[in-house]
Structure formats: C-alpha cells, structure tokens
C-alpha cells in the first residue's frame, strides 16, 4: 500500500517541477521574443514595465494583456503582467512587491484608487513613473500618474444614451452584472444623463451564471412592458443573457452593449444587437507600455495632464465585418 503512495508523491512532485520549468520557459520565450524583436532598435530588456491590473483573465482582460505583450515585444522591453481578480488589497500587495522587485515603469488600473494610493506613493518615492489604465480617469493625477489611458465610463454611457435616442426607444433597462464595479454604475449614470428614462437592475448571478442572469433580466422585461431597450454593460451579458431574454419575451427590444466578443460582433452583423461601445482595450494595454518607455528613454510626459481616451468607439452593422476578423484574432 505504501509504495504506490510514495510513487504518487514523486509523480506529483515531478509534475510541479515540470510546471515550474515550463512556466519558466514560457517567460524565457517571451523575453527571447521581445529581445529578438528589438534586434533592430537595440536591446531594451533592462526596462521592466510592470502592469498590475484588477483584471480577472476573462475575455476583456486577455485582450488588454495581449496589447501589453505586443507593445513589449515591439519595443523589446521586459513586461511583468499580473492580475488581482478585483481584490484591491491583492493589487496593493502586488504593487509593493513590484516596487521592491525592480519595476522601471508601472501601469495600474484604479477602480478603487484609495486602496492603492499608499502603494503607488512608494513607487513615486522610488522614482518609478506611473500610468493608470482602464479605470481611474478622474483620479490619476492624485495618484501621481503621468497620464491615464482608458475610456471615461460616464461618457460611454452618455454616447449610448444618444444612440438609443436616435433609435427612438422609450425606456432602457441597465443591468449591472458586477456588484463591486464602480465603472458599471457610472455607465448607467451616463445613459441616464442623456436618455433619461432608465431603470437599473442589479443582476446577482452576473457572468458566473448566464442562464440565471437571463432569467433575472427576462423577469424584469416581463414585469415592465414599457421597457423596449436593454443597455448591457458586457458583451457576454448582451449575447448570453439580454438577447435570449428579449427573444423569450417576444416583443421588439433593442439591445446595445459595452465591449466586444466574437459572438457579439456576429449578432451585430445579423442585426440582433444594435450596437456595441468599444473601449478598445488592446490599446489600453499597448499604450501604457509605450508611454512608460518614452518616459524612461526620453523623459516624455504625454497627455498634458489630460487622460488619453481609447473609446468609446461604436461597432454597428456598418463596420462589423472588419471588427469580426480582429475579434477572432483576439485583439479587439
């Protein structure tokens, strides 16, 4: 009985070592790639850009990460990308670790700016330039960042409101699929600002259970027949919950969404979804690396104290074909 168990331990330990090795190899390979890409312009691998987001590895953040990796490869700099799954304390801990770990530039998302303020102070005290990305457009100056790259959530909501007005709808439902994301609330506030007749709905199941989210949205649509549009704040919510809910209810309901997915673009092409507001998160990953690089080699501070907006860009039936190709490649 004991020998097989010992063997199991050995096998498992080997697996760990292999996992460790392959992890190391992956990192080596990406560094190697970056270095070779930089062969023309010199080796910048001594520049270590750290991007610590509140991301969760989902469809949205994987595209932003891809943008950062592409920029690091194009410039030949080293990239350290880490996510913290919406846990502000973990993000603060990562930033502090990065400051001691030799980051030469720091890009952070700031959905909860108070929580990372002290950690960022350590970075500025150590002379590490900071760029905020994705969320934090209102507070980047207070955090000591040279600029912000992202979409203003309120403006995105306002633009959606104008679009719905053009389409002639009467009442919009704004389902909030993440309880702790302040940006979602700002989008709903934005659409209320330009459209007016908007009702918020807290969807408890969120992205974790789209079938349940569909049921929640459907129940709301059934109970209030005056609702004739849904502003989904996420492409998976749009295609996986809002659209099937609208189809089940059986009256014409227009759907708009924030952010893209392959499915959402197909639905836009087919006319099932009216539009998507694209914050172009590939650029949110790409630009901070470039900005921090320029700051490092040439002392540039871009943005002039203003945030740099990557959106909102609209995806409608007119440009869906082009976007679809890029979304399939994972860069839109």
């Amino acid at each position: 009985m004991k020998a097989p168990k010992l063997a199991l331990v050995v096998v498992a330990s080997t697996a760990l070592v292999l996992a460790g090795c392959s992890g190391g190899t992956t990192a080596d390979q990406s560094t190697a790639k970056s270095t070779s890409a930089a062969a023309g312009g010199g080796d910048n691998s001594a520049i270590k850009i750290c991007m610590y987001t509140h991301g969760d590895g989902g469809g949205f953040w994987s595209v932003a990460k891809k943008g950062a990796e592409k920029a690091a490869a194009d410039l030949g700099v080293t990239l350290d990308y880490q996510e913290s799954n919406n846990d502000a304390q973990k993000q603060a801990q990562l930033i502090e670790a990065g400051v001691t770990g030799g980051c030469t530039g720091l890009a952070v998302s700031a959905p909860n700016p108070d929580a990372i303020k002290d950690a960022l102070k350590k970075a500025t005290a150590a002379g590490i330039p900071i760029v905020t990305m994705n969320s934090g457009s209102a507070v980047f100056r207070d955090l000591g960042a040279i600029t912000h790259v992202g979409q203003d959530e309120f403006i995105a909501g306002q633009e959606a409101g104008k679009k719905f007005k053009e389409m002639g709808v009467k009442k919009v439902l704004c389902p909030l699929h993440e309880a702790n994301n302040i940006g979602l609330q700002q989008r709903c506030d934005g659409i209320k600002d330009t459209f007016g007749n908007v009702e918020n709905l807290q969807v408890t199941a969120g992205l974790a259970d789209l079938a349940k989210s569909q049921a929640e949205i459907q129940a709301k649509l059934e109970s209030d027949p005056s609702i004739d549009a849904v502003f989904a704040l996420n492409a998976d919510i749009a295609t996986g919950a809002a659209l099937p809910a609208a189809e089940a209810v059986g009256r014409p309901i227009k759907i708009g969404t924030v952010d893209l997915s392959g499915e959402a673009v197909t639905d836009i092409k087919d006319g099932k979804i009216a539009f998507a507001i694209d914050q172009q998160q590939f650029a949110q990953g790409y630009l901070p690396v470039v900005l921090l690089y320029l700051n490092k080699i040439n002392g540039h501070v871009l943005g002039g104290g203003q945030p740099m907006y990557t959106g909102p860009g609209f995806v409608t039936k007119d440009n869906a074909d082009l976007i679809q190709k890029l979304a399939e490649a994972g860069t839109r």
Partner: protein
Amino acid sequence: MSTTTAPAATGTDERLVAVSRFTRVLRRPELGALLGAIVIYVMFALVDTTGVFVTIAGTARWTDVAASVGIVAVPVALLMISGEFDLSAGVMVGTSGLFAGLLTTQYGFSMWPAIGLTLLFAAGIGLVNGWLVMLTGLPSFIVTLAMFFSLRGINLGVTKMLTDTVRVAGIDKVPGYDSAASVFASTFWAPYDFRTSVLWWLAITVVATTVLTKLRFGNWVYAVGGDQTAARNTGVPVRRTKIAMFVCTSLAAALVGIITLLRLKSMQAGQGVGEEFTFIIAAVVGGCLLTGGFGSAIGASIGASIIGMAFIGIAYAGWNTDWSWLFLGVILFIAVLVNTFIGRRAQGARK
C-alpha cells in the same frame, strides 16, 4: 479521565506504548506543511527573476499576504479541529470592514468606538453561527453557507442604500484614524516595511498554540472534534466549546476587516468573498483533517505562509499569469499529499 489511571495489566494497550521522540515529531500535524513550505521557498528562490524573494524586503512582501490569510486561518483551523466549518469567514472580512466604515462615514462615529462596536457585532454573528449549528443540528457547512449568502446580500444592499455606490471611502478623514491605523495598518522596520498585520498574525498563532497545548480548553477542542458523544460523556461542554470557536473565527475575520479598511482607507462591498476557501486551504495544508479532531495552529500559519510565498513568488518569477491558478492548485495539492503521506506513515503504528 479517571479510566486512564487503571494499570496496564495486560501490557498490550496501544495507548501506553512508549514512542520514540522521532515518531512523536513525525506525528506533529504541521510537519508535512513545514517540509512543503521549505520546498516551495527553495523553488521560488530558484525561479526568482528579481533576486528579491529571499531578501528581507521580499520576505516583508510575502509575509504581508500570508498575514491576512493566517490571522483567520488559525481560528478556522481550531474550528476545524473542533469538527466544524465556517464558510462565512471570508465575507465576514468585508462585512466588518463595511460595518466600521459605515459607522464612521455615515453615522459620525470616530474610529475607536467603531472598531469596538464592529468587534461586538462580529462576536454576535459568530454566536448566531454557532448557536444555529447547535440548535438545528444541521451541518455547519450549510448554516454558515446560508450566513455567507445573507451577509453577501446585506453587504451590497446596505452599502448601496447608504452610500449610493458600492464602496465606503474616505476613512482616513475619520477622527482617530491615525492612531487606529498605527496599531492595525502601519509598517515597521524601515526601509523593508513589514506590515503590523504580521505581528497580529504571530500573536494569534502563539495564543492559539498556547490554548491548544497548555489549557484544558485546548483538550476540549480536540475532544469535541474527535468524538462529540464521548466528549459529552466525559463532561466536556460541547456546545460552549464549539460556539466559542465560531465566535473566535468571526472575531478574527473582523480583525482582518478592520486592518483592510484602515489600510485601503476604503472598503468594497465584495471584499473577502471567496477568501473562506483560502483560510480552509491554509488550515488543511497545515495538517487539519476535514473530519475534525486533528490539526494545529502553527500548521495553519505555515499553510498561510505557503499561500503568501506562492502569490508573491509567482509574481517575482514572472510566470505567465494565465497559469497562476494551475500553479497554486498543484502546489496546494502536493502540500496536502505530502502531509497526508507523512501523517499516515507516522500513524502507521496506531492504525
């Protein structure tokens, strides 16, 4: 208790067989975790790309992560030894942080009274958990799962109702913030900046170990987790012991909630959700049996250290984060496997 004084006339009673010191060390619940921690430390020291992991500064970083896990993992381990679970411990971190945050920012309390009331409130929640488990006879898994969902709903509902947003902010403007922050959320030993939470973690580990090994109450904890009926028959107050453990767990979660609130100067309604598994994992990696009656406080703290080392180690190693959960899963699995393997061998004589 008096039964053990009977002379071992037959000479074959296994409980009276003398065991060597070596076997006794092998039988310590935390031995496997300690070996696992050493292996993981060496591994991350080797794959580190920054050269910081093994330095004092690097240690300050990973103990920071370990402390916020360990403070709750230790009482969670004691609760598990007594044969119960608390799935509401993670969300309780958020609840107590929000509770203190709302008292100060919405109702004008200054920091210290708010902290006092938060601890009282947390003790109450622990009491409700324990009392419901005892009263209904339902598994604590179910009772505290219900508490988990309830608190999660209350966290979001109340926070949105009172603040119109999903977080409480501006804590650093509350009277008494500075003195409270210096106790709960400051740093020591510049320039390495260890977190004061590390001291709280060490203190709780020492106190819990003392209670478990030196006090009669510690024997009760093991007894009620080992065999509840036998414990009751020998006069151990089963109900009180278990409820006390629920209260301790809830209080520890509140402590982390207060530390987090003061540190982040704000609290999100979702803070802590999901952490209950991290606490249980730390306790299990540290040698606690899921069936109760076996484990240690030091083991839980070593388990918390492993989680802290893995979190910071993966960042310093520069591993692709797409694989982070896999690394964590493999590490935890191996730690528990080693633990179980050593435990079985050590107890081979007994079983």
